[in-house]
Structure formats: structure tokens, C-alpha cells
């Protein structure tokens, strides 16, 4: 299948959507760049969001060295025209990197602008919340970073503890009623703090602070080129690695006139959906654990192991599959294996349907989930929820239909549906995920059927990436919409100039404080878990022998041998 874009889309954008742009550049797959002066960014955002109901996918900035900073706002126009994505660009001067903030127009930009500000030093003027997002709040000092309320007398003698005031509370009050959940807390597996202010067991205010886990993956990809980037992108997340791989490959293939064989597309879909299955099973297990139901946790993870076994049989790996290539995949699925896997998946589907419905119908589970973490459709829309969180608020948004990645999701070829639910709470999110899991089983089954019956090529050699090309790649990760933006280098055809990743949890975590206010303290971990936060992990270690003072790293073969010895009875 060839992935090309039509040139008249740029013309369409100029005529129908925004006529005053400086320049219109068409990209592949109905993506259009509109260049505007920096002062117009807010005006454009207002027009896009209010008139066309476009959704901001991500806001970011790129450092163009001497030329200045390029501010990018990526909007999703799929509701207006099929698969249309508009990238609004503005070049800001390095000496005075100021441009109007759009966070007041579309709240989704809040986190993105805070991140932009601290990573590049650009200054969106008029930000509603100027505190640090990823850097410590008190860096370089609390007054400059805005974490101290106005008028607070800071005499420089405060202790480190007192310098940080979450929720802008007075110190005396903060010590009494503020409960920190994280960065190390048994209910939250990820490095982040959610500060909740409680009265009794009632949460009256909440605040979230991220930035405990910066790994610089975007920078690493920029130095290693397109091919190695696929492996690095998988390592962004240990659970939705296939989703990251597919989104990266979609984005990289959009840089040139890509052609991908059909069989490879089916294998991609197969892996992405198996990934979704094990991710959702994992999530149900985690929620069972958070509400204190170890049995549910164990049963769900037992089922998940069987999905992992299928993945291992297909790719040879459990977590990072390493089969994503530009122009196809690196490993075929033999017909016998596909037939065997299909039988297993069909069995699994029946068992999942039985067990999951049991979980969803358990009276105590229901009493713990119904009405917890309410999020209306309007709130989800304004807050920028994505994925199952948005779909559980009855908002039909799914990248696989709106803006499909380079895989097979065509409803004419594969029968599947987008699941929505109108519970608007954690129970709704559970139902959406449970039903999606069964839909994924169906897709996997259909892909395996195709793979059983046919043979063919799995990879077409990629063409050279043109200098200075740009592309946006989207994919529906298990947790929601995942966006990649790549700008190719102007000098070297094997290196990207810059890459930006917007993960689904980036969006869903931002609305956690919104869902928390008014809930019971016992429900805080449930609400936090209900967004299915993506946990980041690394997989290497070093042995340090204190007695001898020696250090050694293990090679892969040694590790395999060690694990074989450990598991031999």
C-alpha cells in the first residue's frame, strides 16, 4: 500500500479554514503546515478551536539555531475533513522569544507550554499557570518560579521543605492537611506526586507534579538516525511499546513516499492489538490491586501471561518487539504459527469474556468504581482527555478511525468498532477497556486468519528521506492518542533534526486533579489508576561489589544464562 498525500489539501486549508497564513506547505497524508507570524498564534487558535472545533494535539517548539525558535501547534481537523492535521508554525526571535500563550483558549496547551518554557527558554506570555512542569518547583528559586504566592514574605531563611508550597497554601495549613501521594507510594507505580488537600477523608483540592523520570529519549533519537529510532521509540514505555513503535514508524514513513506490503501492515495491526490486549488486562489487574483485590489482580495477570506468550512466539520478545522497520516489518509470521496463535486467541477470548464480566459485575467492585472520578463529556473535551478516558465520557474519539496509522484498520477489510460508554466514571472506563479488549481479540483473530491464508513480502526498501522534510505520525496507543512529530535534518539525510513525542498519559495525567476534587481519599489511587498511567522503565543493571569495590555490567548472554539457572528446578 502506498501512503501519499494530495496537494490540494493545502489549497483547501487556505480557502476554507485560514486565508491569512504566510505560507502553506502540504505534507504527506493530508497534513498541512501553515506558517503565521508569532503574534497571530492566539488568533489562529481562537479561530480553530471556537469555529472549527479543532482539537490541539500538541504544542511544542523546535530550536533552529541562528534562525530562532519555531513554535508548533498541531491541530486535529479530522472532524472537518478526513484525516486533516494542521501544523501552525511561527518563527520567534532568539533575543526576544515571546509569543502569546494559547492556554487560556484551549486548556490542553497548559502542560505543553510549561514544558516548552523550561526546555527551550521560550516565553509564552499570559500563561495562566507559570510554575515549572518538569523542573523542581523551587528551581532556581521559589519566587522566580512562581511557586510562592504573591505577597508572601520570603526572607531567605526558609528550609527546603518550606520553599515548596503546593496549591499555594500557607505553610501552617500545608503541614496539617496536605497529603502527598508519591513519588514513592504503593498505590502509584510511577514517579510523580499528587498533592491532595483533605478534610477528613474528603479531597478538597489537588495538584500534580511530574518530572521525576527524564530520560532524554527524544535527544537520543536525534543523534542516532531514523532506523535506530524505531528501537528507542519502543523503549519510551514498557507496556505500550508496540504503539510507540507503530507511531514512530508511521511518522518516519510519512517523511518520504513510503510503500508498505500488505502482509507487513497486517503484522503491524496484529502486534498493536496484541499489545492493547495485554495492556488492558494489565490495567484491570492494577485496578483490582488498587481496590485491594489481590485475587482479581492475579487472575488478570495470569490471562495476560498467555497473551505475552503469543507475542513472544511471534516476535521472539516479550516487551520490546524490535520488529518495526521503515517500509515493513523485520520478521514474518509463519502460517503454522499464525494458525496455532489463532486457536489460542479464540480460546482466550471466551475466557476473557467470562472472567472480565465477572469482575465488572462484582458488587464490591461496582461499589468502589461507580461514581468515582467523574468526568463529563464537556470536561473531557476541555481538558483534552484521550483514549479510553475520553471514550468512557461518551466522546467518540479514536485515532484508528480518525487518523489511522500505517496498519490495517480499514472497516471495509477488518470489522471492528469504537467502544464508548456513558457512565463518565471509573466504572465506565473499566467497561470501555473490557469491551475494547474483546474487540481487539476480534481484530487479532482476523489478522491471523489473513496471515494463515497468504504469503508475501514483508518489507520494501525505504527511499532516502528528503532533506528538511516534516511529518506527523499518530497512533492509538492502549492509553489513547499518541503523537510523533519529526523534522528531518537540513544537512544529513540519515538524521532527524528534531523529534517530539506526545504520549497519551501526558494528557490524561493533566486532568487527574480535575477528577480528584470531591472524591474520597480511598478513591484517590483508583482515580489515578483509572487513567492507566504509562510507567517508564529501563532495562539494564550493574553489579557493584562493595567488599572488593569492583563494578561489572552483565552481557546479554550472561543474563540469559543466569535466568536459565535461576528457573531450573
Amino acid at each position: 500500500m502506498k501512503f501519499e498525500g494530495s496537494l490540494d489539501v493545502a489549497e483547501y486549508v487556505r480557502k476554507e479554514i485560514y486565508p491569512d497564513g504566510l505560507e502553506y506547505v502540504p505534507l504527506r497524508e493530508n497534513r498541512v503546515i501553515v506558517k503565521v507570524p508569532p503574534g497571530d498564534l492566539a488568533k489562529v487558535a481562537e479561530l480553530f478551536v471556537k469555529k472549527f472545533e479543532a482539537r490541539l494535539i500538541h504544542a511544542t517548539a523546535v530550536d533552529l539555531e541562528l534562525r530562532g525558535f519555531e513554535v508548533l501547534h498541531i491541530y486535529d481537523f479530522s472532524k472537518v475533513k478526513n484525516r486533516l492535521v494542521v501544523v501552525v508554525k511561527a518563527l520567534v526571535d532568539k533575543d526576544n522569544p515571546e509569543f502569546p500563550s494559547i492556554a487560556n483558549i484551549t486548556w490542553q496547551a497548559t502542560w505543553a507550554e510549561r514544558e516548552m518554557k523550561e526546555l527551550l527558554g521560550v516565553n509564552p506570555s499570559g500563561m495562566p499557570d507559570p510554575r515549572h512542569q518538569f523542573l523542581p518547583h523551587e528551581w532556581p528559586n521559589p519566587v522566580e518560579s512562581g511557586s510562592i504566592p504573591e505577597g508572601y514574605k520570603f526572607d531567605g531563611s526558609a528550609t527546603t521543605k518550606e520553599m515548596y508550597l503546593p496549591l499555594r497554601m500557607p505553610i501552617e495549613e500545608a503541614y496539617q492537611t496536605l497529603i502527598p501521594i508519591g513519588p514513592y507510594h504503593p498505590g502509584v507505580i510511577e514517579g510523580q506526586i499528587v498533592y491532595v488537600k483533605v478534610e477528613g477523608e474528603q479531597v478538597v483540592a489537588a495538584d500534580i507534579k511530574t518530572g521525576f523520570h527524564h530520560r532524554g529519549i527524544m535527544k537520543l533519537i536525534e543523534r542516532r538516525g531514523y532506523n535506530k529510532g524505531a528501537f528507542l521509540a519502543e523503549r519510551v514505555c514498557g507496556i505500550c511499546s508496540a504503539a510507540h513503535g507503530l507511531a514512530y514508524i508511521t511518522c518516519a514513513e510519512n517523511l518520504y513516499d513510503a510503500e508498505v506490503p500488505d502482509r507487513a501492515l497486517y503484522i503491524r495491526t496484529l502486534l498493536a492489538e496484541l499489545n492493547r490486549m495485554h495492556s488492558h488486562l494489565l490495567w484491570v489487574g492494577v485496578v483490582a490491586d488498587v481496590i485491594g483485590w489481590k485475587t482479581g489482580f492475579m487472575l488478570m495477570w495470569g490471562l495476560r501471561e498467555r497473551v505475552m506468550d503469543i507475542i513472544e512466539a511471534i516476535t521472539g520478545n516479550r516487551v520490546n518487539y524490535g520488529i518495526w522497520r521503515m517500509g515493513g516489518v523485520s520478521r514474518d509470521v509463519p502460517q503454522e504459527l499464525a494458525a496455532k496463535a489463532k486457536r489460542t486467541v479464540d480460546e482466550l477470548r471466551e475466557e476473557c469474556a467470562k472472567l472480565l464480566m465477572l469482575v465488572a459485575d462484582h458488587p464490591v467492585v461496582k461499589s468502589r468504581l461507580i461514581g468515582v472520578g467523574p468526568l463529563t463529556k464537556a470536561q473531557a473535551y476541555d481538558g483534552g482527555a484521550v483514549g479510553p478516558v475520553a471514550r468512557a465520557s461518551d466522546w467518540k474519539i479514536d485515532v484508528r478511525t480518525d487518523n489511522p496509522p500505517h496498519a490495517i484498520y480499514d472497516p471495509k477489510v477488518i470489522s471492528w468498532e469504537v467502544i464508548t460508554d456513558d457512565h463518565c466514571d471509573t466504572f465506565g472506563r473499566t467497561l470501555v477497556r473490557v469491551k475494547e479488549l474483546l474487540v481487539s481479540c476480534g481484530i487479532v483473530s482476523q489478522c491471523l486468519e489473513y496471515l494463515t491464508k497468504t504469503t508475501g513480502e514483508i518489507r520494501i526498501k525505504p527511499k532516502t528521506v528528503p532533506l528538511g522534510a516534516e511529518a506527523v505520525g499518530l497512533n492509538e496507543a492502549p492509553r489513547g492518542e499518541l503523537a510523533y512529530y519529526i523534522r528531518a535534518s537540513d544537512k544529513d539525510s540519515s538524521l532527524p533534526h528534531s523529534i517530539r513525542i506526545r504520549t497519551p498519559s501526558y494528557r490524561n495525567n493533566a486532568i487527574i486533579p480535575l477528577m480528584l476534587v470531591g472524591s474520597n481519599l480511598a478513591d484517590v489511587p483508583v482515580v489515578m489508576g483509572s487513567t492507566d498511567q504509562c510507567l517508564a522503565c529501563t532495562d539494564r543493571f550493574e553489579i557493584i561489589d562493595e567488599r572488593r569495590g569492583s563494578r561489572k555490567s552483565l552481557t546479554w548472554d550472561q543474563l540469559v544464562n543466569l535466568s536459565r539457572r535461576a528457573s531450573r528446578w
Partner: protein
Amino acid sequence: MVDLIYTAVSLVVIVPLALFLGVIYSYLLRKLSARFQWRVGPMLRMYGDLKPLLGTTRLLQPLYDILKLYGKETIVPDVSRRRLFVYSPYLSLIFAVAAILFIPFPGMPLLSWVPYSLIIASYLLIGSILFTILGPIASGSPWAAIGARREVELFLVSELGFVLSIFAIAIARQSLVVWELSRGAQSVYLAFLTIVAGALMFAAVLGKLHIKPFDMPEAEAEIVAGSYTEYSGKLLGTYYLTKVFLLYGLVGLFISLFLPPIATDVLWLPLYVVAAVVFVFLLTAVQVLNPRYRIRNAINWYLKVVIPLGALSFIIALAIWLVV
């Protein structure tokens, strides 16, 4: 004189025996819940090649876990009320050990024949739980404060069920002496009362032992370790030891009050063991089948179950007293 010596000896013997049985009950609780959850749990017969390293059986695993804590560093937070924080676990343990002296074991009446022993035993059990609330409050941790608060709320409702059930039996049988209650002759009316009040006591024991869905005072995913957040080393080990004794004590009290005359003669010992295993199995079944309640749901559940069941058992008890 012989009686007195026998009592003295049995008082000394019962403490290690209760510890051993409590550990076995805890082992059962862990092993059974592991089997329910597709896990292995602590091994009864160790794998062949691990025997030199780990021993032939891990039957006493709960005890090893406690002993391990006694070898760990004990940290006392600066902000705590030191004296109350440190003494509470020991006082709690002393109350629990004292309580088991008033609960008969097959062949050993212990102190259960003293007047008002039922009231003494239940008072001592309450005292033991009281100190699992006071210690955490003294620790100065917000998690512990919330855990202790939940414990108080849970304690109030579960205690209601506990007291109603044992006094329904006491009214029907016209006695406040555990030994007499555990010996008594059975009748059809009493059997009916036993079922109702027994269910009530079972519900109360769930709350006292923090069996799910009532483990919210130490709900790990919500409030770290709840009441025990600041406890470590010996002090935490002492609390766990208290729990082992409480488990034994509550099982023993249940059998002696609701399954007479199993807890009297030494010949009943096999049946005592069977009854205890069944009781622990029921606890495990509830534990594995339920997620944790919110504290408010738990109180509502107790009020829904305790008030009707308590009223019913009291009516039956009064009827037996007045009519039969």
C-alpha cells in the same frame, strides 16, 4: 491442690501453644489464599534442590517473617510521642496474651472458670485493639492518623456485633462464665441462636482481623501501611505477633461459645482442629473473594447486618430465657 498446679502448668503451656496454632492458622490463611489466586504460597514440602537452603517445610513462614522483623532496625520518628509509640505494641501484645488465658482449649480450662470470665476476655480483646489505635496516633504520620481514624470507625461497628453476639449467648444460657458456656447442653432453640449469633460474630471477627473487605485501616494502595506506616523492626514485629495471638484467641472464643462442648475435653481435640481449619477457610474465602470497601461502605454494611442480626439474636435469646 492438684487442680491449681494443673492450671498453673497449663497457663504456662498455652502461650507457646497459642503462638504455634496462631502461626499455623496464619499459614493456612496465606496458603489457601495463594491457591485461590493461582499462586504457590509458602511451601509445605520444599523443592528437592532447595531443601539444604530453605529447610524441608515453610510451615512456620509467618513466624519467620515476624522473627526477621526482630532482627531489623527499629526507627522511632522524631515527631512521635515516644513513650506511647514504643509501649503501645507491647501493651497490645500483653492484652492479647492475657485474653487467651480466659479462653478454654480442649483439656485445658485455663482461667475460663473464673466468674465473669466472658466479660474479662472481651474487655482484654478490646484493650488489645485499642493499643493498635493509640500507637499509630502517637506516631505523628498523616497516613497513620488516617489509618487510626478508620480503625476507630471500624472498631466501633464491629465491636457492636461482637458484643451483641456474645451477650445473646450469655443471656440465653444465663451465665457469664466462658467455661460454663463452652460445656453446656445443646437444645434445638440454642442451635438456632448459635447460627444467628455465630454469623454475627463471624462478621465481627472479619473487622477485628482486618480481613478483606474490611482491611481499610492498613489499605496499602491508599494510605501506605495505614496504622503501621511508621512502625518498623521490633515494634512492627510485636504488632504482628499480637495479630497471631488475636487470630488464635478469636478462633478459640468462637469455638468455645458457639460449638460447645468442643473446647472442653481433650478427646474433642481432633474436632477442635477441624472446626478451626473450617473457620480459617471461611475467613480466607471472604478474603480472596472481595476487594476492599471504602470505610463508609463498610460501616453501612455493618449497620445493615449487625442491627438486624443483633436484634434477632437478642429476641431469640430473651425468648429462650423467658420461655424455656
